[in-house]
């Protein structure tokens, strides 16, 4: 099975296949000798030429991360054969830009009602959690095309709150 994996903006073509009790891997066409064992849910022990890596996966609504030791990598994995593909919420993309909640919280104020024009960096709405207010800014110049929430609404991290076109 071949995946297109993006790690910190760099794209790898990764082929993985079972071989006996373990796995056989190729990366960008090259042989990648590894020994892998599952430890817990979302946690692997990967050994490559004697080096030992404890690898964790963390998936939130906002993003998927791969954690190796103290390093955290933003990851996107695409299966060319399927349309199921996880993309980082804040990743680039054509068309209207989305404004997503960086944390769970409560919508305190709407600063720019739907339909109005905004400039890049201008606050669109304010959410609050743990007594801290977070003004969410427009990613680009344009118009607030859509507001998915009203004042007082409880939102989850990664939830799309508004779209700017």
């Amino acid at each position, binding site marked *: *099975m071949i*995946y297109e*994996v993006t*790690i910190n903006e*760099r794209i*790898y073509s*990764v*082929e*993985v296949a*079972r071989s*006996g*009790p*373990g*796995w056989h*891997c190729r*990366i960008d066409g090259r042989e*990648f000798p*590894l*020994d*892998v*064992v*599952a*430890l*817990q*849910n*979302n*946690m*692997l022990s*990967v050994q*490559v030429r004697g080096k030992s*890596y404890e*690898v*964790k*996966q*963390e998936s*939130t609504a906002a993003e*998927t991360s*791969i*954690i*190796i*030791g*103290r*390093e955290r*990598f933003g*990851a996107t*994995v695409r*299966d060319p054969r*399927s349309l*199921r593909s996880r993309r980082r919420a804040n990743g680039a993309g054509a068309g209207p830009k989305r404004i997503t909640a*960086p*944390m*769970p*919280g*409560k919508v305190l104020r709407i600063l720019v009602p739907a339909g109005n024009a905004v400039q890049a960096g201008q606050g669109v709405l304010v959410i609050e*959690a*743990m007594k*801290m207010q*977070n003004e969410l800014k427009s990613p680009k110049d344009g118009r607030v095309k859509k507001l998915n929430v009203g004042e007082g609404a409880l939102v*989850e*991290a990664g939830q799309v709150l508004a779209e700017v076109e």
Partner: protein
Amino acid sequence: MFKKVLIANRGEIAVRIIRACKELGISSVAVFSEVDRAALHVTHADEAYPIGPAPATESYLNIPRILEAARRCGADAIHPGYGFLSENARFARACSEAGIKFIGPTASAMELMGSKTRARQAMQIAGVPFVPGSARGLSLAEATDVAAEIGYPVMIKASAGGGGKGMRLVRAAEELKPAFEAAQSEAQRAFQDSEVYLEKLIADPRHIEIQVLGDEHGNLVYLGERECSVQRRHQKVIEEAPSAFVDEDLRRRMGQVAVQVAKAAAYTNAGTVEFLVDQDRNFYFLEMNTRLQVEHPVTELVTGLDLVHLQLRIAAGEKLPFRQADVALQGHAIECRVYAEDPDNSFFPSPGKITQLLRPSGPGVREDSGVYEGWRVPLDYDPLLAKLIVHAPDRATAIARMRRALDEYFVGGIKTNLSLFRRILEHPDFVAARIDTGFLDRLLAAPPRARASANGEVAAVSAALFAAVASGETGGRNGTRPEGAPPASSSQWKTAGRAEGRRTK
């Protein structure tokens, strides 16, 4: 000793106090707001009672509800922890009127120290050194004169304040008016008291505090200092004991002044005297915190004492079991305050469900935690999750040990400030103990230097492997588990080792 103690708090400090109660054979009573029914302090306590809705004003600050719970369960004492009602003299008084021992200083000592201006007057009589400035609340006009007299830059502070609220730095005369008014209204909001006063700014000071302990028989001791200069917006982030900046002589002099301060307030139980220390090792009284501090564990580790045990014993009328001469410091301790906040996103709080929790352990590692895997950190309170504290023979080893512990620590599902601690502990100025209260803001002003990683390929391959297993293709879904079975067994992985292991049998 008390039979039953109610803990009027939540989170790690409530758990820490409950542990002390268990160790002393005291039954522990938790109180909880509606969002804390499943919180760790509730499940650890022997008894637990609801005290209202999520907002602290309706629950953890709700004096009648808390006293009602205490009466109902027959508690003979209440420990307030820190924050919430811990420095509320009215609460202390209400407790004693209800015939329940408040574990802390007397209401009058709290009131004296609670008003910075009254405290300053009392301390000046006691001959305690002060930062030049006004001893009392000021009008804008008076402030202008005092500022001119002592010279800019000056600090404006709230008389009832603490934790940086109602504080403003003023570099020049023209900045005074707006800053003064902002400080007043912030103080009004935070403490229902707009009184502010004024102090000369000490350049690049260190924040160093002395732990004191007094019994109800007139015995007072100091337990060495804590170095608390690593702060973000006047909030402590990392604390150490001892301070690399403090030598035996300075420690003794600061300790003796701290004891004078406590004496002047007829202080009992645990308290902390905060000082500003300038580059020439002059020290100035800041304030006295009339409660147990968040950072008390670093003092416990270097003195070998248990401050909460001692608080309980003292409140129960026991004498201090040791004298000043018996207090000896061993090794070095560092504490990191682990918060649910995102250091990559201007430290916005990050409440939510903890999907995975890997906790550090081993030699010299202590974790005082208020959370567990599967728990949802509520939006409603201070986002302190846990305190990670290490003890080692010397400071360099303590730093290395903390780095090791941080590498073992993983909190999945929410953002934490763990990565911030790595940055601090690797910073040459911190390693060399060249720290003042401006250190962390300077560090944060500089962008974190991104190292090129050698592990990109391993990350890429791992991501693909996770995906391959998650995909239906190999049957089953990563994350689903047969009844009762632990993760590894049900995941799609063939664990090579084990498979071969069986073959050898």
